[in-house]
């Protein structure tokens, strides 16, 4: 098991290097000159040239790449072309809100979606099942910002239960954090609840037809035990997969939510960086997202064996 995890970690290195190469090239090859943006519309060609030189944009691609990789190795993600501050510092500042909201989203999604899916499968083809499936279709089809505004309208403006926008770190008190994080999390969670509930239902439906479920019932086991002890663990692998993939996708999903709720997370940072062609920040963001994706996948793969003893590495 330990050897397996070690092997998997080693195996992520080439993945990350390929991502790095891809990221580097993609941005250098797209049109748009950061020097021009930095200098403003009235800059002379001379000024532009000086800025390019200072930023190293005139060196051959391979030199720029090697320099960048060298910095990466040292954990230095470079300096923002726009704000002139360290990218790693910017990321750390902005990561907190995003991670907190993402985690809260996942907790809400799993806590609601898994029981929903289980009950829908158990009461297959009844109104309960129909209700869950309808919600699921709705959750898929309504855009994130629409849900966000509807929730704000109801809970912040009409009922005045929570503030409209903004963010407080949990270190400033759990109450203020929670009241501001709950709506964005619920907004984000809608689509994941839809996704996870659907997958749970499908996976459970399959498992509930298995012989060992009949055996459990033949033993006189209560239905809740049949569902959660006997069936759910067997249905876990596809559900875990979808939760893992969902979490990774979440990081990109926060962009819209953070704009709607005015949260200073990495979603907003990314949008700003792309609009300003702030290369170092964009590169760091893509690397970070790829890193999170790889890490979450590793976590999911390892967790399979926790639920299913037949999976051994």
């Amino acid at each position, binding site marked *: 098991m330990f050897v397996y995890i070690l092997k998997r970690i080693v195996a992520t290195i080439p993945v990350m290097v390929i991502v790095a190469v891809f990221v580097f090239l993609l941005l250098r090859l797209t049109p748009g000159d950061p020097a021009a943006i930095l200098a403003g519309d009235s800059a002379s060609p001379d000024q532009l040239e000086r800025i390019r030189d200072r930023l190293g944009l005139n060196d051959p691609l391979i030199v720029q790449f090697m320099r960048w990789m060298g910095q990466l190795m040292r954990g230095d993600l470079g300096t923002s072309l726009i704000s002139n501050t360290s990218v790693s510092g910017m990321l750390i500042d902005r990561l907190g809100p995003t991670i907190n909201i993402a985690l809260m989203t996942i907790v809400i999604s799993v806590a609601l979606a898994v029981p929903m899916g289980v009950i829908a499968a158990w009461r297959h083809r009844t109104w309960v099942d129909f209700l869950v499936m309808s919600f699921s279709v709705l959750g898929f089809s309504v855009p994130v910002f629409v849900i966000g505004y509807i929730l704000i309208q109801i809970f912040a403006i009409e009922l005045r239960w929570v503030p409209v926008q903004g963010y407080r770190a949990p270190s400033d008190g759990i109450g203020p954090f929670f009241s501001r994080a709950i709506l964005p999390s619920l907004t984000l969670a809608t689509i994941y609840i839809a996704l996870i509930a659907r997958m749970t239902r499908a996976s459970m439906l399959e498992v509930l037809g298995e012989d060992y479920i009949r055996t459990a019932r033949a033993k006189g*086991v*209560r239905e809740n035990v049949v569902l959660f002890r006997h069936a759910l663990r067997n249905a876990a692998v596809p559900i875990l997969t979808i939760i893992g993939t969902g979490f990774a996708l979440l990081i990109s999903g926060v962009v819209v939510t953070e704009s709607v709720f005015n949260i200073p997370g990495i979603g907003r940072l990314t949008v700003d960086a792309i609009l300003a062609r702030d290369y170092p920040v964009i590169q760091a963001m893509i690397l970070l997202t790829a890193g999170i994706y790889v890490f979450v996948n590793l976590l999911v793969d390892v967790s399979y064996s926790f639920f299913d003893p037949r999976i051994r590495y």
Partner: protein
Amino acid sequence: MEFKSRDFSQAARVLKIRKLKVGLAGRPHAAPVLDGIDLDIRAGETHCLVGESGSGKSVTSLAVMGLLPKDALEVQGGLIALEGVEITAASASQMRALRARKIAMIFQEPMTALNPVLRVGEQIEEVLNMHTDLSQAEAKKRTLDMMDQVHLPDVERIYKAFPHQLSGGQRQRIMIAMALILDPDLLIADEPTTALDVTTQLQILKLIAEMQERQGTAVLFITHDMGVVAEIADTVSVMQQGRIVERAPIRDLLTDPKEDYTKKLLRAVPNLAPRVARAAATKRDVIAVQGLDMTYGGSGFFRKSEGVKAARDVNFTIKPGRTLGIVGESGSGKSTVARCIMRLIDPTAGKVTVAGTEIAQMARRQLQPHRKHFQIVFQDPYRSLNPRWTVARSLCEGPINFGTPRDEAMATAAELMELVDLPRDALDRYPHQFSGGQRQRIAIARAVAMKPDLLVADEAVSALDVSVQAQVLDLLDDIQDRFGVAMLFITHDLRVAAQICDEVLVMQKGLVVEHGPAAEVLSHPRHDYTRNLIEAAPGRHWDFANFRALDTAHPRQGATA
């Protein structure tokens, strides 16, 4: 042969079923699945329910358990009384309380019947947790004690094992321990040994009998295997299309069956008397296998491992028009040999010469044109035909691949339908529109469409009812007569091997332990393993088809069988 002949008229009645009618849920006027079943089982009695697939045996047992699939089937009339408690009127929680305490069930496939993600000990213990107030420690002690009673070795270790870490026989012992731990009055066993090897089957049948004797349990035993019935039954009920057509004590039923259907069922049971080998043609061999080895796994990336030697030094030849059977238990390597010959897997060493060409070491691309010389029929016709293809498409695909014009391939397909006794319009239909036996005929037609020199049948009749099995065996015989094809017949069933094989090769753990004419091997086995296999075959002394003991029918058999 000895039959049970105990009298149960004085014993307490455990189960009483009257005029039970089960039909499709929500459709009271559709044809019922069970129609007027009457059944009585008394304490200590073993009542066998026999019949072909679809006759309603399993539905009967599920109705008694209250486990009919909710949205598919429902009880539409009649009564089921267990020790005087009316089951059809019981609430869900009353029914749960009866299960495991009064009535328990074991199933056909112990691998799928046990939860793969829970330790087997916990699964047994769960019964105690649900139905008793025992403390954790007491429950565990009682579980281990029960595991001991069903003769599981090293119970502390097995308690912690997961189902996939146990053998088929051990899994079924776990199931039995689980079913009997609360000493129920009625045990329902639904084909509990069908998925097991004959030697394991014998052990499990003995175990059930032993537990029954100890606890005085009534047993409702569902099976399609007349051999098993002959060994264990006190009373037999024969089911056909949702009705019980005949009920009698075992001896009466086997010696003097009243109903035509019962006679038909019994006549279809092949006996262990081997066929007389057909004259060996002097022509060259269709297939020659020399020193065939197959090792699975073997070289690991990080560490060298031994690998599993699934077949070691297998040698045989088959001449045109003759059949060689490979028999053995699961894991003996018989299917591995078949797959190596078909080059579905690549043998690690040895030569396979089919129709004059060495194919064992040939590159896959070069092998392609030779594949038409050897064709295979698999065990499960439900899965070996593409469900989204018409029969015609399945039948024509091979010949068209090998350059036959479409019209000609279609014409051949139509002829083949006649050969396998299916209507011509069957060509336009899909596999799910046929019964199991019909599907296997289609699978055979598909193989024969290639005009092969060698036909490999891998457990080709094992999934079929006996009467259908007999028909398919006849069909294979007929095809062999007509086309002179050589056949390699893989089976675990010695009766089937006795019916169809000229020669038999017995495998055990990858090794060939005995090889010779069927009459010789099955009548005078030399190897202990072969002898064990033959002795484990249930009802081997009985000639079912002629309603009498086999000894009188075939005196030559008496000495050995």
